[in-house]
């Protein structure tokens, strides 16, 4: 195809002929001082808090502080191009981001500008980044599961659609990995995912995007990126922008999942801005309203009532702790806002238990209702059993002689721990999870050496998929484990154990 120059020219000519310029009316002010992502502006007497303003270079800003004689503005972009005395124009609208289907599969900055080099984002709608959370009447209880595909999470700290589950832990304990596995597991589940990266290394974000793409998860995911090289204002608004993008789909009756990675960096960016505009510092120098900054963000996740379409927005905020200190300011704040937390421990991580979830203090306050019946049945006592095992393990380390019953409980525990390990980017279907946890708790792996449990599990799942698909399909279909199915499952497991042991002996004989 070739463009015809005269055709284009005539279109443009027509546009210009039809163009009637209106007088542009705006409120203006002048920049008094500028630096570190904020500007103080004199004038703008009609400015509203949160209003979007425009600098002559085209950079946008948001009114942050209204003072007696001046206005504090956070600059969303390059603040080095702004000089003292520049004219600032108010726009009369709140800061908004583009939303809609056009964003899916894209990597954008917190203002919705594309960062992936795939051309402009053709969104027709936009939404203010801050919007009130749905009220009481607009919500319904969380009761639909959001499968993370991670055995330890789905069995013991289940997450429901509309829930806010905090992922908390020290650096390098696999917090992002859990969030990524959850996103990858939403493939084909009609869940639109938004991954908000806030204050992360740009290389890490590139890695995340690559991992999502390689696992086919970019087809239903939006990545909002404000790496640590971006100015603090952009890092501060990134989570709100991500929430707005997800909210749009929620109000259309769709299911969404938002990952905020991570909110401690956002709090630090907010602290920087607040100190620069001279708001008084409080504990750990955070401003007094840092709690509200997070609560209003996380309150926006909801399971909407059926009248509103029944859409949902699940949040997985991430908080990084320093040396396991969960009693620091930001971690306690976010723990109290969320409906539970998944606590990751470096000790477990380095002991090879990955995901390094500490099942003792990880909880889910509302997810239990959302768990499938089958999972509830098999995982009911798992938490307590594991806690008892940890206690027993500590006791056994004293080197005392153990009776047979205690020893067998210990052996079972070792195998369960082994079973809950799961490699990255390999989320499991919930039916597979039910089968392997059932096999573990009922002792079908007791004859398997501890180091062979992972192999045995893999072979078991393959065996169930290929030879006993009717049992597996029944579990998927009913999402429950009724007595008849349980009998079938037992029979299948017995058959598998015989087969597995026979194969092992054969192998030994061959040697």
């Amino acid at each position, binding site marked *: 195809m070739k463009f015809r120059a005269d055709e284009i020219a005539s279109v443009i000519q027509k546009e210009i002929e039809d163009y009637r*310029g209106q*007088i*542009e009316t*705006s409120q203006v002010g002048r920049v008094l001082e500028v630096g570190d992502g904020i500007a103080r502006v004199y004038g703008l007497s009609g400015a509203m808090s949160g209003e979007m303003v425009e600098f002559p270079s085209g950079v946008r800003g948001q009114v942050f502080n209204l003072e007696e*004689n001046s206005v504090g503005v956070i600059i969303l972009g390059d603040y080095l191009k702004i000089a*003292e005395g520049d004219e600032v124009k108010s726009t009369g609208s709140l800061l908004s981001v583009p939303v809609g289907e056009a964003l899916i599969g894209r990597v954008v900055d917190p203002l919705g500008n594309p960062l992936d080099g795939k051309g402009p984002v053709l969104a027709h709608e936009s939404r203010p980044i801050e919007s009130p959370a749905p009220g009481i009447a607009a919500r319904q209880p969380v009761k639909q599961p959001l499968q993370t595909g991670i055995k330890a999470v789905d069995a013991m700290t289940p997450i429901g659609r509309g829930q806010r589950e905090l992922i908390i832990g020290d650096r390098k304990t696999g917090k992002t990995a859990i969030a990524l596995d959850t996103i990858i597991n939403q493939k084909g589940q009609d869940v639109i995912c938004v991954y908000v990266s806030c204050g992360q290394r740009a290389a890490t974000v590139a890695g995340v995007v690559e991992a999502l793409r390689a696992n086919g998860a970019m087809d239903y995911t939006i990545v909002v990126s404000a790496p640590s090289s971006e100015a603090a204002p952009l890092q501060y608004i990134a989570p709100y922008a991500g929430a707005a993008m997800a909210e749009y789909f929620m109000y259309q009756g769709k299911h969404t999942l938002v990952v905020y990675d991570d909110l401690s960096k956002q709090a630090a960016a907010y602290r920087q801005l607040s100190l620069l505009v001279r708001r008084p510092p409080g504990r750990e120098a955070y401003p007094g309203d840092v709690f509200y900054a997070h609560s209003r963000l996380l309150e926006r996740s909801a399971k909407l009532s059926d009248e509103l379409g029944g859409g949902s927005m699940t949040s997985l905020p991430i908080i990084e702790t320093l040396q396991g200190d969960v009693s620091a300011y930001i971690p306690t704040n976010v723990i109290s806002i969320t409906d539970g937390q998944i606590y990751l421990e470096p000790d477990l991580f380095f002991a090879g238990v990955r995901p390094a979830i500490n099942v003792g203090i990880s909880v889910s306050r509302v997810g239990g209702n959302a768990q499938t019946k089958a999972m509830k049945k098999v995982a009911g006592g798992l938490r307590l059993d594991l806690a008892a095992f940890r206690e027993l393990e500590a006791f056994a380390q004293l080197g005392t002689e153990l009776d047979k019953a205690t020893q067998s409980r210990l052996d079972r525990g070792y195998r369960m721990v082994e079973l809950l390990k799961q490699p990255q980017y390999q989320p499991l279907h919930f039916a597979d999870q039910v089968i392997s946890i059932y096999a573990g708790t009922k002792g079908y792996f007791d004859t398997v050496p501890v180091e062979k449990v992972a192999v045995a599990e893999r072979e078991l799942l393959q065996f169930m998929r290929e030879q006993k698909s009717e049992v597996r399909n029944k579990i998927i279909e009913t999402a429950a484990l009724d007595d008849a199915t349980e009998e079938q499952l037992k029979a299948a497991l017995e058959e598998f154990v015989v087969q597995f042991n026979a194969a092992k002996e054969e192998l030994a004989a061959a040697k």
Partner: protein
Amino acid sequence: MEDPRAESIARVYADAFLNAAATENVADALEEFASFADDVLERNPDFEAVLLSGMVGRDEKVALINKVIGPYGSPLFTNFLRVLARHDRLELLPLILRESQRLQELRMGRRRVQLRAARPLGPAELEQIRTQLAASLPFEPVLEVQEDSKLLGGLVIRVGDTVYDSSLRTRLKQLRSRLRERSLHEIQSGRDRFSHPEGD
């Protein structure tokens, strides 16, 4: 570049000065103030430097005012200068003068309107703009005209913090963004022809 904090202080002094002058003749007082700035300070930069400097003590400044202004100025204005000297606010004099003029205009129902035009405006045009503005604004406008060839054409009128922009430059900017918005789709579909149909 004006400093809002100094301006707000100057406004307080200007207000007080006008109120004090109201018992006599405000216009005369303002004229005296302006002539002090034009005829005394402007012509004697050394005197201005001494008066506005922070290095000279306030007692010396008061003595200087008594000696230099006392015999010639009105008692009201001399007193006003003494008060300023005693409060260490003499460096605000130019600002106070400007603020008192503005305040007086405001009290007379007049306000400043900044006008920017691409080319010099003749007196007839200015008068026409003034009468039109007076008809549509709730006060009598006092025009401050500036020339700015970057506007290309049209006028930019600023009343307080509100700007009415009908300049050619702004209109061209609007037209440009509109044209670009319309053609975004064509640009993207043009790109799509070269990309893989199943995404990546």
